[in-house]
């Protein structure tokens, strides 16, 4: 379908597609097998200027928004959702600075992000605070001209690989959710270290690691936004970032569909290619329809968000739920179309099915997204 992209957007798609084709697809199975972080691919992505697509021009970027990120991530995800997750998590990690950071912070960090010379990560989740982020226990106390952070973040994408971390910590534990603030912690800061590295079902080329802050001392000017506004910034950040995760679902679903159709045309049983069986055709037809519907919703949501409306949570959640549930279903069906071969690691759909699952879990589970949509409906129909 023609989504009427601008010439610049077409170039973003083409560039990300070339990265996927030339740099990601040839090595994705090996990265998955070895649980290996794809640092050299990130350098390729940086050299192609893709890290700059959402950074304002005055900081060395190309000045795009949510939609440009969506376009790039969709193509990268066709190659490997693990690599694409690394890109998405870096964007997620720097959004708080873009949204709530002051001019000095933007000057300091955004040019490096745009150039791809430094990557970011977002540290919210803790052992006892997943869906209920208000349960975080990491604290930050001002001591003279320094903030002192204590606590452990869990399952942080790009942990140990990124150089810039945005950390959510309580500055006033008595105030609960209103007592949280966001801080920038840099690799190498005193008292900041990395803990357990996870061994995951899918997206194995993305690093997922614990962040440990033990009397971690950072300069006073690392506070992002006003004290106590941490969760407001977190919510704004996630509203803008969720369509990115949705687009990973679109790219993955498309890639699985491509594999399934290609295979169905070649595989002969009962004397004809299996695509000749209506049962297979209907499955492929449903897969294709769902991929296109998800893409249309994600693009529309991203464009809506780029227009900076007052409320974007509902559409942001809707596109995340729809596209990632789609990706799970379509990848399972792709394995089915390939039959026993689909279950084997020689064919890429096996990895795709494993990679799909995370999309329904991170950046807010799909149950939590439905809660958000439900709450918005409840308000709208008041």
């Amino acid at each position, binding site marked *: 379908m023609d989504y009427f992209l601008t010439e610049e957007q077409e170039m973003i798609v*083409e*560039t990300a597609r070339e990265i996927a084709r030339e740099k990601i697809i040839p090595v994705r199975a090996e990265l998955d097998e070895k649980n290996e972080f794809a640092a050299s691919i990130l350098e390729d992505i940086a050299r192609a*200027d893709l890290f700059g697509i959402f950074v304002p021009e005055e900081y060395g970027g190309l000045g795009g928004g949510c939609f440009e990120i969506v376009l790039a991530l969709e193509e990268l995800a066709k190659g490997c959702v693990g690599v694409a997750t690394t890109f998405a998590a870096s964007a997620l990690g720097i959004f708080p600075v873009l949204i709530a950071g002051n001019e000095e912070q933007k000057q300091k960090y955004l040019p490096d992000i745009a150039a791809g010379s430094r990557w970011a990560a977002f540290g919210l989740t803790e052992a006892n605070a997943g869906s209920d982020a208000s349960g975080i226990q990491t604290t930050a106390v001002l001591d003279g001209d320094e903030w002192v952070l204590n606590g452990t973040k869990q399952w942080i994408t790009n942990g140990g690989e990124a150089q810039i971390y945005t950390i959510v910590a309580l500055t006033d534990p008595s105030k609960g959710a209103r007592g949280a603030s966001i801080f920038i912690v840099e690799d190498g800061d005193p008292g900041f270290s990395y803990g357990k590295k996870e061994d995951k079902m899918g997206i194995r080329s993305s690093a997922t690691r614990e962040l440990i802050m033990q009397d971690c001392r950072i300069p006073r000017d690392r506070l992002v936004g006003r004290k106590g506004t941490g969760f407001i910034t977190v919510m704004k950040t996630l509203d803008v970032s969720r369509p990115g995760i949705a687009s990973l679902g679109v790219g993955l679903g498309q890639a699985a569909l491509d594999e399934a159709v290609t295979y169905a045309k070649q595989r002969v049983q009962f004397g004809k290619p299996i695509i000749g069986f209506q049962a297979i055709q209907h499955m492929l037809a449903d897969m294709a329809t769902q991929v296109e519907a998800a893409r249309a919703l994600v693009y529309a949501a991203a464009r809506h968000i780029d227009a900076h409306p007052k409320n974007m949570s509902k559409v942001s959640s809707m596109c995340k739920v729809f596209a990632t549930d789609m990706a799970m279903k379509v990848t399972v069906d792709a394995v089915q179309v390939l039959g026993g071969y689909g279950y084997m690691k020689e064919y890429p759909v096996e990895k795709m099915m494993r990679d799909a699952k995370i999309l329904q879990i991170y950046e807010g589970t799909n149950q939590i997204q439905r809660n958000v949509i439900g709450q918005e409906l409840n308000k709208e129909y008041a």
Partner: protein
Amino acid sequence: MELLVCIKQVPDAKDVRLDPRTNTLAREGVESIMNPFDRHALEEAVRLKEAHGGTVTALSMGPPQAEAVLREAIACGADRGVLVSDRAFAGADTWATSYTLARAIDTIGSFDLILCGKQAIDGDTAQVGPGLAARMNLPYVTCVQKTRDVVDGGIEVERMMDDGYDVVRLPLPALLTVVKDINEPRVPSLKGKMKARKADIPVLSAADIGAEEACIGLAGSPTRVVNVFSPEPRGDRKIFTGTAEEQVDQLIEHLRDFL
């Protein structure tokens, strides 16, 4: 460091066919791409520029549509592209091509290093690089798999051999032809693509480069394609040793057997 890369637009290898009547390449309806070896030559030039400063100029001789590979070169990091194009160049063999490229290079500037692909995937002769060096009176090394160092007005490179490699140091200005092992070409960048879209690609004619009519195109091409076939696997090889004079004597003696 002023760098120049010679880039040929070639038919996509996936589609190459020979015209059975003329024994030449059938070019109609075949998609054109940048000669794959030249992509590596360009990448090496861009890396040398990134390391040592300077500029990268991409040069191609070909029909007007060859401009596309020059825009692609700019997207991949070249600073500018120059096309030499003229009906009078049509039918050029390697002799006429190297003459034309040499005239063009003399016209557009002076360069410390000229890079070519090892060979073009259509003509496949691997003669243009060395031919160009001879025309320009430059030292050259073919089949370079690595540029090691640029020091004291010279460059040290590794030349790929069947069993290992030679390390060769040559003074600049010089010419290199490169093999694919030399690097992993980058994907064209977004900023590069935007620059490429807007870039002015000057087109030089035979008159602009002061080319003599008798030296260009079909008129300047002594080559006649008689037959095209797949060669037999390579036979015995012989390595001569001794002083240069002794080696030449042995070679002449050896060649006499075939006359």
